[in-house]
């Protein structure tokens, strides 16, 4: 049995942020995540570090939080934030009244804006719709959610925090009505670990109510599915928003070599049973195409959905529910933290850890806003010079990942999961979506004795199913053509079957 002070359930941005904050305040902790870091809504979002503009008209408090956190994250997370800046684009027919309210609210909160003629905006982003009325510049950024989680966990690791990924909490251990620990099953080996702690933090996002249920508690949530598409290249160097009340498909965010566009907002019941519909894909492309016309002809390489855990509300349109967050004290040693946004994850973590410090009757101020994220020096980043230095041994041609880089990540993390290599190197994130390189990466893992040959084949099989879920919604044009080739390779040339 493992003993610690605080058990964190969930390895999204919130959970990882809490782990870092606890580490910096010297509190022993252990994080449990059933998949990989950022596997839920954190990894299935735009990767937009909001300036606050998006919420400024409807929710001034959330907007102000976003703006403040935006400024903090730029400072502490240089290596995972790209200060792209953002534009709110007003198209013909978009409400002028909304524009006035937008500008006024930004001024009240202190979000800096700059009104631009369409000519000026086109100079900044040549792909924009030349028919637009005007654009308003705001300090939006692009952020890498995987990297963000890993850097937060780096601090936890340095300070001796524990973490178990691919461990699913199956039981909350209670004694005299108090939650005193958890049992978690290793999703790979099936082994069960028992971990005891004084406080349990439930930061499991869309799964919050399911986890709370293990302790006999309830957290009423509205689950809102948001869908996104990824293009095969970067159509804009700035974040593009539509200047109108939040609606479908009105945000485009550049990220490394690609762009993400979305989202939709549909209420769902079960976070484990979501998939993207072709109608959603068409809506997103249509709307994104109104801001950046080229979007209509650009190859979409992936289409997927995430689930936002929103505070339960009577409102029928999930877009009207506050994006603020809430900490729920279940009065039995467990807390749930729900709502919020990727942009405000650090603030959420700070408030959560303040609550924990109170409960422990300890006093130590939060330092997460001042100290740069640990581990940024070790990141390889995306410099081409580095990616091209070993051209002979490129494993992933789309994203230029070398065999050496793959081997380095494997030795460094000891990972047995090809997904971990993907998140750390971008292997398999390009147009073929891992169709060619995953076969190689798993072959390399076997060469390095990380996986047995049987495990490599099984991992490849699971990967192909997982991959297909992500690209199924984007199959037409060249993406369909390439997919047919990949299918021909695995099911035809290699005669792979479903099961052994």
């Amino acid at each position, binding site marked *: 049995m493992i003993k610690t002070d605080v058990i964190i359930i969930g390895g999204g941005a919130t959970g990882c942020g809490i782990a870092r904050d606890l580490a910096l305040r010297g509190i022993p902790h252990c994080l449990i995540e059933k998949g990989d870091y950022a596997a839920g809504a954190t990894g299935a979002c735009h990767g937009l570090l909001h300036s606050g503009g998006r919420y400024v008209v409807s929710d001034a408090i959330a907007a102000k939080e976003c703006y403040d956190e935006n400024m903090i994250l730029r400072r502490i997370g240089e290596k995972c934030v790209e200060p792209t800046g953002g534009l709110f684009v007003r198209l013909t027919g978009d409400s002028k009244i909304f524009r006035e309210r937008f500008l006024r609210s930004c001024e009240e909160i202190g979000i800096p804006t700059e009104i631009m003629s369409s000519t000026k905006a086109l100079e900044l982003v040549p792909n924009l719709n030349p028919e637009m009325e005007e654009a308003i510049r705001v300090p939006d950024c692009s952020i890498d959610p995987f990297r963000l989680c890993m850097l937060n966990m780096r601090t936890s690791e340095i300070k001796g925090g524990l973490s178990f990924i691919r461990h699913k909490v199956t039981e909350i251990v209670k004694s005299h009505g108090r939650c005193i620990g958890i049992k978690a099953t290793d999703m790979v080996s099936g082994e069960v670990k028992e971990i005891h702690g004084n406080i349990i933090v439930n930061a499991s996002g869309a799964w919050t109510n399911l986890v709370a249920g293990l302790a006999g508690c309830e957290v009423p949530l509205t689950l809102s599915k948001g869908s996104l598409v990824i293009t095969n290249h970067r159509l804009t160097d700035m974040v593009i928003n539509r200047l109108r009340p939040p609606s479908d498909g009105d945000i485009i965010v550049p990220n490394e070599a690609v762009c993400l566009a979305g989202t939709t907002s549909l209420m769902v019941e079960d976070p484990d049973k979501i998939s993207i519909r072709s109608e959603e894909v068409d809506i997103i492309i249509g709307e994104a195409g109104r801001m950046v016309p080229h979007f209509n002809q650009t190859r979409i390489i992936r289409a997927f959905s995430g689930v936002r855990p929103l505070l339960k509300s009577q409102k029928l349109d999930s877009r009207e529910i506050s994006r603020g967050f809430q900490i729920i004290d279940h009065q039995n040693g467990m807390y749930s933290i729900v709502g919020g946004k990727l942009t405000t994850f650090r603030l959420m973590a700070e408030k959560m850890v303040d609550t924990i410090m109170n409960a422990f009757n300890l006093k130590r101020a939060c330092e997460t806003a001042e100290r740069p994220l640990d581990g940024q020096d070790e990141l390889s980043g995306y410099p081409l010079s580095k990616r091209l230095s070993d051209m002979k041994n490129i494993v992933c041609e789309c994203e230029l990942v070398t065999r050496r880089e793959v081997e380095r990540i494997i030795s460094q993390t000891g990972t047995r999961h090809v997904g971990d290599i993907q998140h750390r190197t971008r292997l398999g994130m390009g147009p073929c979506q891992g169709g060619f390189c995953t076969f190689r990466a798993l072959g390399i893992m076997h060469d390095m004795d990380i996986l047995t040959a049987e495990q490599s084949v099984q991992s490849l099989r699971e990967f192909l199913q997982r991959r297909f879920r992500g690209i199924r919604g984007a199959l037409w*044009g060249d993406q*369909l053509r390439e997919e047919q080739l990949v299918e021909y390779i695995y099911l035809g*040339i290699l005669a792979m079957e479903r099961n052994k």
Partner: protein
Amino acid sequence: MSVIEYDVIVIGAGVSGLTAGTLLAKHGLNVALVTTGEPTACLSTGCIDVCSVSENPLQAIVSLPQRHPYHLISIKNIRQSLRDFQQAMTDVGMPYEGSPENNRRVLSAIGTFKTTCLTPVTMQASPQNEDEKIHIITFAGLKDFYPGYIISRHKNASFSIYDAGVATTMGISANFENEAFLEAFMLWLEKQNIREDKIAFPAVLGLESASAIVKTIESRMECPVFEIPTIPPSMPGRRLFNHLKDHFRRHGGVIYWGWPVVGVEKSGRKIEAVIAESQGRPNSLNAKAFILATGSFVGGGLHANRDSIVEKVFHLPVFLPGKRETWFDHDYFSLSHGIGQAGVAVDSDFRPVDCPWDNVFACGAILAHTETLKNGCGHGFALATGQAAARSCLECIR
């Protein structure tokens, strides 16, 4: 614009197009083939899959769903197309083994067995069960071949690594054409003290003279040697294409290489010409009849828009398997994705259904209801439909 006259123009240089063109050329017609470039055959294993759903390919064909285009051809003619192919390949020095009565197994690069009908002679010794003792030779740095995948299923397999100085499939294959390289390799191989019954290689044993190279290694090592088809670029696929291409040319066929078809000229119920570009310059290729053999999506004959599927040369009607949501199952391994049904439907003369012209024929993977992967009917289907479309075309012209 230059204007060139032929009896028949074939569009597409894959197995079906080359087969159709060769049959017509053999009958003394003036045939030209126009292609954008290398066909998908170059990406294939080079094996001739006739119909892999049961042990006997010809019987398997009989059991296919009624609308499968195989049913438009008599078993006698299917058999004939396979016989002609085997004869042609023997003539060019790359014999194909097997018979249309029996499917056989070929070891894949992942250790599974691929079911096929005719195999290049370099795969003749491929094991037929998981217990055979094989020794795999692989090459340093070859990034698409991992013997571990094979050993996971074949406990009696082991491997050694040779450094060929280059690490690509093409590079190693080219080296094997060099006598000094082959000799140095043989000296190394002889020292490996291989005790297994057979020696396996990824398919890199030479460019065009692979069958001779396999024979050399077999006689020096005194044991059977076979190739394992690799993921693209695939040498056996390339050899198949090159031999079929040479065969077509030897019978007088002309190939316009790298000439994408960008338009057609029509008059009444006839296509008069296709317009093909060479370095941006349009050329009018006139003919009495046209055979469409541009392949499916990978080959580039079909293109999927978000709400429709188009045939790219003549804009022929395409069978659509329903709305986009139904094109793909949720299970990757299902093999029954709706998209496999997409294509150009043809009548018993291999004329596209509802085609506004009388002198257009279609063959190969572009045909509707083929379901190539599910039915394991790749190149065998291309050979049979290529000949069938050519025969109809011949009648049409005469």
